[in-house]
């Protein structure tokens, strides 16, 4: 598989070009991405704090999970779609960005964390559904989930700070010194 070629092809696609050349599309997509991640992190925090026994301890875990997690998935799809759209506008740069790579690893780890829940505390859910907190395995999953998602958000923001056009190509220094025109004599070059 030729990854550099795929990245180039993504960047050259009509959709990517269209977003890149528009003045407002990228900012708008990024703003919708923020709404998506705010909803993902917000709804997941509610579940994680319930697992840890810090909040909503009076309510059945299963009821909360079935009420909330569908919104988490809707928001995740929104964030993933807008994230993909931003990625293709500058695919090669994002692909090689360390923060972006760490973010993808953390996302994968939070997926594995979910799997770990299903294999441990998720199996005995009926035993602790009404308890204040989940058993130890569930509490570990909840704490890890909070930490991983915070890491995902921080890495995402750092990706933005290190891949924007301003960060990549600082404006060239002005080649004209206006003092030259005003005073009529060239200013001496600055000492080295």
């Amino acid at each position, binding site marked *: 598989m030729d990854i550099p070629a795929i990245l180039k092809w993504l960047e050259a696609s009509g959709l990517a070009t269209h977003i890149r050349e528009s*003045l*407002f599309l*990228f*900012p*708008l997509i*990024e*703003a*919708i991405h*923020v*709404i998506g991640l*705010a909803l993902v992190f917000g709804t997941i925090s509610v579940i994680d704090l319930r697992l840890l026994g810090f909040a909503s301890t009076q309510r059945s875990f299963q009821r909360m999970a079935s009420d909330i997690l569908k919104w988490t998935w809707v928001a995740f799809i929104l964030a993933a779609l807008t994230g993909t759209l931003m990625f293709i506008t500058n695919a090669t740069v994002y692909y090689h960005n360390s923060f972006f790579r760490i973010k993808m690893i953390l996302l994968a780890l939070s997926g594995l964390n979910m799997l770990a829940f299903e294999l441990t505390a998720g199996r005995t859910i009926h035993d602790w559904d009404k308890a204040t907190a989940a058993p130890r395995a569930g509490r570990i999953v909840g704490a890890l989930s909070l930490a991983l998602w915070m890491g995902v958000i921080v890495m995402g923001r750092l990706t933005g700070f290190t891949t924007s056009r301003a960060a990549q190509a600082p404006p060239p220094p002005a080649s004209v010194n206006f003092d030259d025109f005003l005073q009529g004599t060239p200013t001496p070059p600055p000492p080295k």
Partner: protein
Amino acid sequence: MLGTGILMIIGEPVRELVTFSFWLKMFLVAVSTVIAVGFQRALRKNEHRWEEVLVNRMSIKSMAILAFVIWACIIILGRLIAYDHVWGSWSPATKA
């Protein structure tokens, strides 16, 4: 959020304060604060009939939708502070 927001303004006051997005966002934060306080007052005054009667009123429902949309706009505008050029000549930043 208030704390980190103030830190960012202190850090780069020009970048924040010379944008249309920032001031529209602050206006909407003020509006949504008024709505939230109004909701809480109404809730405290009519606690007994809130669950059955008032939540089903169209006026209350539309206020809830309005508050939700305003918060989405606040998030979008917050991100647009970094891209204030999208407002064209409305942005004081583009005139500089």
